[in-house]
């Protein structure tokens, strides 16, 4: 007995090898196919060659956070069986017009590769990509099993492209068009769904503007019995909405059209009854131009609501308070700051299950307006909603003490995005920098993944971040910091940092060059309006061949300054499709 175990101990490696060699690939593939998280799959593929092979054959979904980090050729070579692709393109600051037009991230080359290698592609989710009508037509014609198209913050296409999708994709289950720079010439695309087409489950055209044929829409909704998500655009009136609801009582997510119409008593009652009949609605949005008048029609529906998106509705505090009383199960709330602190107090009092709050500014550009929300509203929510972990808050004043209280009440923040709208504004009561506020956030919220800072900040804020924010993955900084040391603290201190975006900060070459190896462990770095020079960028590019270093020059600026820098890791080498305004170093 003992000698046997000794023998086994003497040659453990050969014994192990024998075990793994007898484990068939097919079995391993089946086991691995149960893994869905792309991060888990990445880890698995690194274990050994056998696992790498099994993983690549069994993977059906792929997520690419930066379309230039890999090429279509490399992707299709490694993964032969992909059915679902998610691609993100432009840097996030392109949302705020900081990226030049024609920057890139064109989907077309990918589609051509997919048509050859993934003819059975079913799902495509794109964010911040350039998509042309030609690409949409190509997509519609080359993938017979195509089911799901989601376009978020993309641009370059028009409703003609959508018409192609509606016409040719016979198996479409989801068409989700959100916040795109789209040329909306006509609503006739909706009428292109054939009468025989019944598979739609998700339809979101909320951000388009053209009128669609309401008869065609009604018929479409009637025959698609599995429709769960319907988000219409502003052109759909309340009366039309009522007719749609009556035909789709199974809806789970609803985006209304315009909530402003002269309804006499009977149609109002019909509307209320139609809402009452949709017992499964858990997500509500739209409500364009809603006048509080008709909101009572929603009250009964609100009882089961978990996500309420009022970012296009300017409600005052009283009206909003009356509505929110009816939403005890709310977990996610997006509102405009017209509800003011009183409105937020109502949230704190009525929504104990709240996990996510986003407050957008209704009038972001007027400095003299004394409306909006202050630190008091945020504090009130934190007292009432202890499960709060995601916040995006636009305000005009804040104090260190308030933030300290907030994170004491809600220590589980994973996403803390605070935007004090006047750049460089100190604590308005003490006139001190806001360093201690963000210090409190990173010290208390150990699960923090995403942080956006604002207000008057010295390097101390970044020392705190580097020291305490051990789970931080995304950091956004604007108009903050005093010296290179600030940025260095972050680069040296945050082990899980993936995305760093910086604008208008006094960080220069020393800071940039202190992060050389770090950038290979990150998805990307953005620096604009800082103090980085072309020479430093060239040095960085030379020393780190696996990084792409791209500089966007602004007209009339100093030749030696690198106005906007975008650095990202890649296995695909420098890109060849950059416009003239983007220099690849």
């Amino acid at each position, binding site marked *: 007995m003992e000698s046997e175990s000794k023998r086994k101990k003497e040659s453990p490696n050969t014994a192990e090898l024998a075990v793994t060699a007898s484990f068939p690939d097919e079995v391993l593939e089946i086991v691995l196919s149960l893994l869905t998280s792309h991060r888990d799959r990445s880890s698995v593929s690194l274990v050994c060659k056998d696992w790498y092979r099994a993983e690549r054959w069994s993977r059906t979904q792929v997520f690419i956070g930066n379309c230039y980090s890999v090429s279509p050729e490399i992707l299709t070579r490694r993964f032969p069986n992909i059915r679902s692709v998610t691609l993100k393109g432009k840097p996030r600051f392109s949302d*705020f017009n900081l990226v030049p037009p024609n920057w890139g991230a064109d989907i077309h080359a990918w589609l051509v590769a997919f048509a050859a290698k993934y003819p059975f592609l079913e799902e495509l989710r794109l964010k911040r990509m350039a998509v042309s009508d030609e690409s949409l037509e190509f997509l519609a014609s080359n993938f017979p099993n195509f089911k799901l198209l989601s376009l978020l913050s993309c641009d370059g296409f028009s409703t003609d492209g959508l018409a192609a999708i509606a016409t040719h994709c016979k198996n479409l289950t989801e068409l989700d068009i959100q916040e795109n720079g789209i040329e909306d010439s006509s609503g006739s695309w909706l009428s292109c769904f054939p009468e025989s087409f019944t598979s739609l489950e998700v339809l979101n055209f909320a951000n388009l503007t053209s009128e669609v044929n309401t008869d065609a829409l009604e018929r479409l909704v009637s025959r698609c019995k599995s429709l769960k998500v319907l988000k219409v655009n502003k052109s759909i009136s309340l009366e039309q909405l009522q007719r749609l609801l009556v035909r789709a009582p199974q809806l789970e997510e609803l985006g209304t059209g315009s909530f402003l119409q002269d309804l006499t008593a009977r149609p109002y009652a019909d509307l209320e009854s139609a809402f009452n009949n949709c017992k499964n609605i858990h997500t509500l949005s739209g409500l364009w131009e809603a006048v509080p008048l008709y909101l009572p029609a929603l009250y009964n529906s609100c009882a089961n609501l978990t996500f309420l998106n009022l970012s296009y509705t300017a409600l005052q505090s009283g009206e909003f308070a009356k509505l929110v009383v009816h939403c005890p199960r709310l977990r996610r709330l997006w509102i405009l700051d017209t509800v003011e602190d009183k409105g937020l107090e109502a949230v704190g009092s009525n929504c104990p299950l709240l996990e996510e709050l986003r407050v957008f500014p209704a009038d972001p550009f007027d400095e003299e307006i004394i409306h909006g929300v202050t630190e008091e509203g945020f504090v009130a929510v934190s007292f009432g909603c202890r499960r709060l972990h995601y916040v995006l808050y*636009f305000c005009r004043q804040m104090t260190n003490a308030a933030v300290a209280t907030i994170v004491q009440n809600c220590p589980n923040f994973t996403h803390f995005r605070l935007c004090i709208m006047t750049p460089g504004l100190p604590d308005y009561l003490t006139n001190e920098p806001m360093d201690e506020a963000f210090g409190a956030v990173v010290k208390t919220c150990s699960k923090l993944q995403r942080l956006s800072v604002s207000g008057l900040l010295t390097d101390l804020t970044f020392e705190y971040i580097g020291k305490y924010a051990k789970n931080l993955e995304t950091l956004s900084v604007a108009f903050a910091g005093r010296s290179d040391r600030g940025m260095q603290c972050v680069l040296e201190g945050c082990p899980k940092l993936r995305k760093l975006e910086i604008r208008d900060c006094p960080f220069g070459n020393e800071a940039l060059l202190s992060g050389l190896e770090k950038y290979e462990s990150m998805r990307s770095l953005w620096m604009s309006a800082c103090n980085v020079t072309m020479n430093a960028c060239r040095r960085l590019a030379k020393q780190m061949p696996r990084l792409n270093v791209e500089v966007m020059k602004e007209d009339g600026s100093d030749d030696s300054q690198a106005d906007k820098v975008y650095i990202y890791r890649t296995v695909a080498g420098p890109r060849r499709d950059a416009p003239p305004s983007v220099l690849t170093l």
Partner: protein
Amino acid sequence: MIFSSSSSSPSLAAAVSNNNERRDLMSTCTDLNLGLSISLSPEQRQRLDWPPIKSLLRSTLNKLAEKADENDGRHHHSQQYGSLFVKVYMEGIPIGRKLDLFAHHGYNALVTTLSHMFTIKTTNILCPDDSDDHGRVVHSSSKDYQYVLTYQDKEGDWMMVGDVPWEMFLTTVKRLKITRAGRCHS
């Protein structure tokens, strides 16, 4: 440049002098020493890249702001300072009065004001006796009233006040009239 040489730290001042144009926003907003915030100029207000709001929301909010400016306060009574004055006549009295409906939060308040204006007892006006949660009126048919409160709506029809929710009433009412009870059959 608004930073004073004594207040800013050396590195920030250097940074500022390197990036004159781009620092405009920051420099006109903050005096580090005093912590004052100075208003943005109109050009700065129209910046497309700050605050960080997505383009679609930005343009929608602009349209909302324009609409609020344009309208006459009728449909956007959510504005704090709007008013809606309508004429009120009492049957038999040729000279009418004017009343701000927005200054009232419901039918009860309206009736109270009218009774003061025309020195009638509130209990003599047929109008909200009880109202349900939505501010709608429940008429009690058993009582005898001297007066009935009516209104002319957008379509020109004369209707009894109190049938629809208060907010809905506000969108259609053009004028009010207090008539003697005998004239409208209830």
